[in-house]
């Protein structure tokens, strides 16, 4: 059984309440940090742990914290990004629902490390139950003296607020989130300046994902070095994976980074194999924004090695043959899934969610959506496929925030790996309405390496 750091006690009845959480050793990290560590010591532990941001980009958390500007007399803020809206990702919601005090505890320790006396948890607007749960947890923690003035007699003050989000995917982008938190329209800001220098209300700010902040708790409890022993290379610790799609056991799993993709899909500890005895066709490994891979490439890299659930292994091969760990939204598609339809569905999402500031993203997402719709419904032409590649290329890298890239990559990768299925929709429009292209060669063993040199 793999080690679980965040979800060790998730099945203890009542773990959502302060008392049970405390009995299971909760809030030890606050005691340890406030009583025996300096803020810089905490930052140092997080650096040593090798923890990388769990919100999608995988930026080392300790390094992000050490970049925080500390001008005299200016407040600093910690903002927790709980806007979780990426299709295929639902781990933060699960954590907040079942073990909210883990997040509160992480917020206290992290705020202490950063010198923030006011911190915010920005929760996706649709997650009203979770907002209530967090508010209750904050009240309990406050009543027990873990929030408010002079926490545990340490002289450290912290007020923690929950802010319901505006209900837009884009508000999960950190600078759009800050705009929204300030009460404005959630348009991403142009960087620089980065939030570490000028964030919330123009003050130095750190924005971290729910899971990143929760992971600070075991790091402080056990020490950064211990945490770093789990995992492989620069992918340390454990990661929450939201597993969904055509699998026997969808759900949120805490894995040790380094599990093989094959084990993750087929072992009974995790997904339990493909549902209904079907065969695996494709996987979107890290949430809708990352490139989709066919069965053969998700299980093995082009070099014939087993692909592992780590930042490095999933991105092995770059855009040509790799993908990304992203936010850990693991969507499994079986042989009956239609890649064109799936791609159209994703692009519909990005078209709907683009904030509309940058011309390439505003116009390009709608354009791709319309062309994909036409292909899916049997009215496409061969030139549409190249058109999509071209439009995706013109969006990618030409926008203010990464949503443009996130909209372009799924389309570009689907065509890169499943071009014959797109072409089949053009050549067999009637059949494509009734049936599916099926598994085709997408699970065939990869050709020997020689072919790729």
């Amino acid at each position, binding site marked *: 059984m793999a080690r679980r750091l965040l979800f060790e006690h998730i099945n203890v009845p009542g773990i959502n309440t302060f008392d049970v959480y405390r009995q299971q050793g909760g809030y030890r990290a606050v005691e340890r940090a406030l009583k025996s560590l300096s803020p810089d010591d905490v930052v140092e532990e997080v650096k040593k742990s090798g923890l990388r941001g769990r919100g999608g980009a995988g930026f080392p958390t300790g390094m992000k914290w050490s970049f925080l500007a500390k001008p005299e007399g200016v407040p600093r803020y910690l903002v927790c990004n709980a806007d979780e809206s990426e299709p295929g990702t639902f781990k933060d919601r699960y954590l907040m629902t079942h073990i909210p005090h883990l997040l509160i505890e992480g917020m206290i320790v992290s705020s202490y490390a950063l010198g923030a006396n006011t911190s915010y948890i920005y929760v996706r607007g649709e997650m009203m139950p979770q907002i209530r749960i967090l508010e209750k947890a904050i009240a309990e923690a406050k009543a027990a003296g873990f929030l408010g003035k002079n926490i545990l007699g340490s002289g450290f003050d912290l007020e923690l607020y929950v802010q319901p989000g505006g209900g837009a995917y884009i508000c999960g982008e950190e600078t759009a989130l800050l705009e929204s938190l300030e009460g404005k329209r959630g348009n991403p800001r*142009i960087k620089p300046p980065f939030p570490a220098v000028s964030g919330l209300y123009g003050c130095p700010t750190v924005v971290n994902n729910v899971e990143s902040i929760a992971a600070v708790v075991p790091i402080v409890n056990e020490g950064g070095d211990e945490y770093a022993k789990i995992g492989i290379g620069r992918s340390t610790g454990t990661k929450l994976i939201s597993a969904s799609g055509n699998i026997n056991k969808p759900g949120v799993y805490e894995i040790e980074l380094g599990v093989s993709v094959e084990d993750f899909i087929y072992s009974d500890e995790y997904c339990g194999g493909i549902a209904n005895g079907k065969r695996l066709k494709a996987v979107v490994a890290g949430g809708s924004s990352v490139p989709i891979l066919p069965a053969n490439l998700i299980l093995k890299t082009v070099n014939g090695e087993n692909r592992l659930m780590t930042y490095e292994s999933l991105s092995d091969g770059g855009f040509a043959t790799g993908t990304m760990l992203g936010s850990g939204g693991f969507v499994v598609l079986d042989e009956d899934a239609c890649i064109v339809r799936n791609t159209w569905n994703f692009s519909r999402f990005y078209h*709907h969610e683009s*904030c*509309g*500031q*940058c011309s390439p993203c*505003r116009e390009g997402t709608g354009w791709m959506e319309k062309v994909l719709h036409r292909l899916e419904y049997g009215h496409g032409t061969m030139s549409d496929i190249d058109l999509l590649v071209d439009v995706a290329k013109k969006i990618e*890298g*030409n*926008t203010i925030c990464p949503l443009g890239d996130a909209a372009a990559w799924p389309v570009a990768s689907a065509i890169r790996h499943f071009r014959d299925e797109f072409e089949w929709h053009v050549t067999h429009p009637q059949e494509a309405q009734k049936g599916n292209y099926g598994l085709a060669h997408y699970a065939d063993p990869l050709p020997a390496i020689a072919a790729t040199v």
Partner: protein
Amino acid sequence: MSDKVKVTIDGISVEVEPGTTILNAARQIGGEIVPPAMCYYSKLQGSGGKCRTCLVKVSKGSEKDPRPMPKLVASCRTTVMDGMEVENITSPEVVEARKGVVEMLLINHPLDCPVCDQAGECSLQDLGFEHGAAQTRYEFDRRTFERIDIGDKIQLHMNRCILCYRCTYVADQITDNRVHGVLGRGDHAEISTYIEQAIDNDFSGNVIDVCPVGALTDKTFRFKNRVWFTKPVDAHRDCPTCSGKVTLWYKGEEVIRVTARKDEYNEVEEFICNTCRFDKKNTSDWVIEGPRAIANTSVISSNHYETLKPLPVIQQNPALMAANKEEFERTKKS
């Protein structure tokens, strides 16, 4: 000079103050190496970064860190570093990317130039002419909106809007209470005033001048004439609200439009008030200064100086006559 930084754009070097953007450095050099800017507006704080027409390639980051920047950058929002080298029109990659942006800007644009009041002084028309393809690859219905009157003097033709946000910055920064902004997201976002509230403010008319396309137009000028049949003349008056420095657009002896004075980048020199813009349309309201210099590549100049028969207002003034003669000679030479 030591505190200035040196930047080279398309092989031409210039020394600028630290903190200058690549776009403004390019404007200091001038000429065709200046990237087109559809959303940036030097007089509007926070503008820029959105339209992406000003993309350039940074082939050398700086003297200290010569690595090139991995992606094309928006020149209007990227500041120069000492020793930076930038490619604009000398980079095929930039030209190609800009073409892509122009295509994006045009897919939902109505292409109704023949009936659009902005035609002839529209930045998108110029850009489309320079970079656009002859044919569109977009085969879907364009998004459409109803026309909206913003007060009795300004009309919003949302179909033509490129969401550059300039007008919202005017509403934010020039006028004191904001009733004008962006609603909705993505390609369904629209410029709006809540419940079509009229913008009732002395300076609201400036949204017309900052709009790079024909989305916000002057209702008092609507369909009166094509700009290239009109003659621009600089004039001023003693105005209690603004500087009173304007351009009058004449058709025959009639002032059919008043605008702020625009520079070569289509930016106004100074914002003007609504009284000057909408209510002072008699020559007698103004002190005439001289013909407005218009780039000789502009269609507006095509009709002006081909004969030495200037406007009656000019004929009465020897200095203006001399200036008019000079323009005439210049036009003939080129």
